[in-house]
């Protein structure tokens, strides 16, 4: 993706459809004709009840799963027909993914976990090490370079996952329920970090069923039964003190 051309949305999806067919059960229409467009630098939250299909949509946008039909453009390039290998190369350099269950490689140290994408992208080991050190510093994880994921708390693991996702300065950061396995302290940390990176210009797509997390975003897309039901930009509404969660979403009739 070329940063020299800041025009055009980073993500544009048209008519994405995905149906899961588990063995011996009825097919599940996870994503039913979704149109979506995300601009550079936006912090988008995708909310909805569990089972709505949010994670599936995120997987489609990250190339972790293939849509049954529809088109997808990432930074002007049409990517829905990409092979798995090409998607992998795209993900290396331009997309970072953070999962609910951290998904760190269990037998690699924290340092190795974070450096792996950098090495994949072709950077030299020394450079990878510098980038890693910087990032871990920023995330408050200095001193944990040689621990394995099993020795860290949930919040620390998620921060390592975040570092891994951001080490290649991706154009797009996808976060799938990043605080789903964390306690309130961990949740606050993750929110703070996401906000910080967003301020530096990182485009973030956050999937969450927690409305409080969603409120940290610029734009909230509501998802229900595989379709987008609302797309609201926060910040238009006047700030009210002690605003409740219910005020975030306005259902259009």
């Amino acid at each position: 993706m070329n940063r020299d051309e800041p025009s055009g949305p980073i993500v544009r999806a048209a008519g994405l459809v995905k149906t899961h067919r588990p063995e011996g059960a009825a097919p599940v229409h996870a994503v039913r004709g979704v149109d979506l467009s995300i601009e550079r630098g936006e912090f988008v939250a995708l909310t909805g009840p569990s089972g709505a299909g949010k994670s599936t949509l995120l997987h489609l946008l990250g190339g972790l799963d293939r849509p049954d039909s529809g088109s997808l453009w990432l930074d002007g390039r049409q990517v829905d027909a990409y092979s798995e290998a090409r998607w992998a190369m795209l993900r290396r350099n331009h997309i970072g993914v953070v999962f609910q269950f951290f998904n760190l490689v269990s037998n690699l140290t924290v340092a190795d976990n974070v450096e792996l994408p950098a090495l994949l992208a072709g950077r030299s080991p020394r450079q990878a090490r510098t980038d890693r050190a910087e990032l871990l510093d920023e995330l408050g994880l200095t001193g944990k370079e040689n621990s394995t994921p099993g020795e860290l708390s949930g919040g620390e693991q998620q921060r390592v996952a975040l570092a891994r996702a951001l080490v290649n300065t991706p154009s797009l950061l996808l976060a799938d329920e990043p605080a789903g396995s964390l306690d309130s302290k961990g949740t606050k940390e993750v929110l703070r970090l996401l906000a910080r990176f967003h301020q530096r210009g990182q485009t973030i797509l956050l999937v969450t069923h927690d409305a409080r997390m969603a409120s940290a975003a610029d734009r909230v897309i509501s998802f229900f039964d595989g379709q987008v039901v609302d797309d609201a930009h926060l910040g238009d509404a006047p700030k009210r003190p002690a605003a409740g969660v219910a005020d975030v979403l306005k259902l259009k009739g």
Partner: protein
Amino acid sequence: MRAAARWTQAHLTAHRPAAVLTALATAGITISLLLATALFAYAADPWQRAFTQSSGAHVWIHTQGGAPAGSLAGLDEVRATSGPFRTVRTTASLQPGDSRATLELRGAAKRPATAAPQIVAGRWLDAHTDAGADAGATQGIVLESSVARAMWAKPGDTIVLSGFAAHLRVVGVADTAEVTFRAGETPGVAWVLPATLDASDAGRDERGRTIGLQLGDPADTDYVVQRAVTRLGADQITDVSTWRQAKAAAEGGNQLLGRLLGLFGLGALLAAALAVGGAISTRIRGHLRDISILKAIGFTPGQVVRMFVALHLGLALLGVALGALLTQVVGTLVPGRIGEAMALWRQLPGHAWLTLVISGGVVAFIGAATCLAAWRAGRVPPVPVARAATAAGGRASALTRRALGLRVPPALVLGWRGAFHRPLRSSAAVARLAVPLLLITIALGAWTTLDRFTSHPENVGLPAALTARSDTLDDRELRQLLGSQREMTAYPGAEVQALVPGQTGTITLRGLGTDARPYPGAVVEGRAAHGPDEAVAGQGLLDLLDARVGDWVRMTVAGRPHVLHIVGRSIETSDGGRVVSTTLDTLREGAGDDAAPRADAPPRPDFYQLVLRPGADPDSARESLSKASGGRLEVRETPNPADQLSAVRAVSVGLIAVLTLIGLVELATTVGAGVRDRSRDLLALRAVGLTPRQITAVIVSATAFITLAAALAGTTLGVLASQWLINLQGRASGWGAGIAQRPAPGILLLVIVVAVLIAATAAVLPAARAARRRLADSATDLL
């Protein structure tokens, strides 16, 4: 590249014990296969063994007396020579029958270094005692073993040879790697002192020279023969024989052995490949989650496949190299027959090539299994989904629920369900464990078949333990003497060589027993020969003539035709099965069927086969016979091919050891997979209320059930396969189908019980450790 290297390095560091174990297991399997091959080479080709041990000569040139045979030593291709020996051609009378044997006597003062005769009885010639110089001392002769067998001679006997005034005394019998003696076809070899040769009054036609040439490269044989003929002149050369002829002549009887051993070897290789392949694919399956994470980070499927293949192939190469190196360096130091076999194998031709083939074969098989597993790994979706959600579930079957209701220990029930819940995966595990057990059963079948040869020879066509004949007693006296012995029954017999249409070699026509008292042979197809002109043939003969039971066969004996009706097939272990047996009366009738008037008394049988009463000891029977006859009777033991096949016993033991090792590798894989699968349910099991001991029992019983199923399948299939395979080999080698014997049910039960016990024991420790693991405190532990 860098990322792949980083991941591989970290993976090896994290899983170091498993990696070391895999490399060691591969090394162990390679070592076993190489040692087994050495044993096979040692046992399967006795001719090659004799050739190598005696440092044999590839070409034997027989010339006239004055030819400069020694000049052949100067040829470039010749590495060493045996001789040249001065020779005298002579004849000896041969019993049974009146044929005469042609012998070539070689004058050798001391045992030659090249083509050294290997003494099997008696001793070599001694310059002092065997020269016959002193009064009363006879000149000594050493016979080659096939000649000694045909002449019924052993050390201490005296023989009469044409051209020698005095009798010669046999001082020793020796084995060589030359073409074996066949009456009427190939002359036999014997050695005397040069002085003895000088003393003979053989004419110039009967004197000659013989030289044996050992070549640097056996492929030069034909070329060297040409050179020799050119150098010496074709008129000077009387005969040429090569190692190829000797090998072909010797190979007749050993086909069964070679085939059986080849079969075993192939089976072992297959089992080893399956074991290591299974271990690798199971380990890769355990890393599925890691693989999808790697893909999510940005590894392409091709990179993932290449990483795994490189890792496991590298370990395999390391293991194989280690195993091959250890075998080469330490192999000869192993005590017993294995060390001998290794030392011999080094010198055999094709040794280096075979080592490379086996090492390469192991690596290739492992590589293939790894590629398959890695390819499957490459197809894992990049979405690290919680695996618990994707495992196919199902209601507990009615049987399970009833069992739980009947207070069967829940551990057993859950173990059963866990073992057989997923039919595809569990049948793969059962099949992998069943293969080594199947092969072990086949090895046991071979062992039992061999036992049958030694303990019940009457079932395989060898009812007579002893054969007797006499030169001095006349037939009536002999019959009286043998009839008076209570513990044996004597059957008269005669054996002649016959020609059959379309074949250049001869077959053996044997007449045993009379119509009144037929010989108890082992007829496996059809019926025994009763009436006139009926006969029973061995499989080798039927194959040779392309005949079946029920056909009429024509053969020529000493110029006279015989026509026989083949009414049955018997197991014939001598002469490659190319034997026709009929009654003595039929044989004599055919012989007397010419213009010459028959003598009043029927011609005497050549020998008597003595069938001992069950339980009688052959040695004591022989002693009592020689005592009763006052030494005028010659009795010897009928050769039992079980002696030839005794190598199969040693090889079976070796093979069972190799297969046990392979089975243990498989078991380790199965146990590991079982523990990993059950660990996911650990929390659930604890919540239900099972104690850690019960949870351990669940895992152990799951493994035990899989092993039980594998053992039952393996032994059942193994019994069927062993019978079929051994009969197949028997048929192909000319002895005939019907030799196979099933292993005793008790032994099979023992194998099953031992297998299940070993499996349960191996599973206890890992299961106990898994059951007592700390409760997972984060969801990642369960995925």
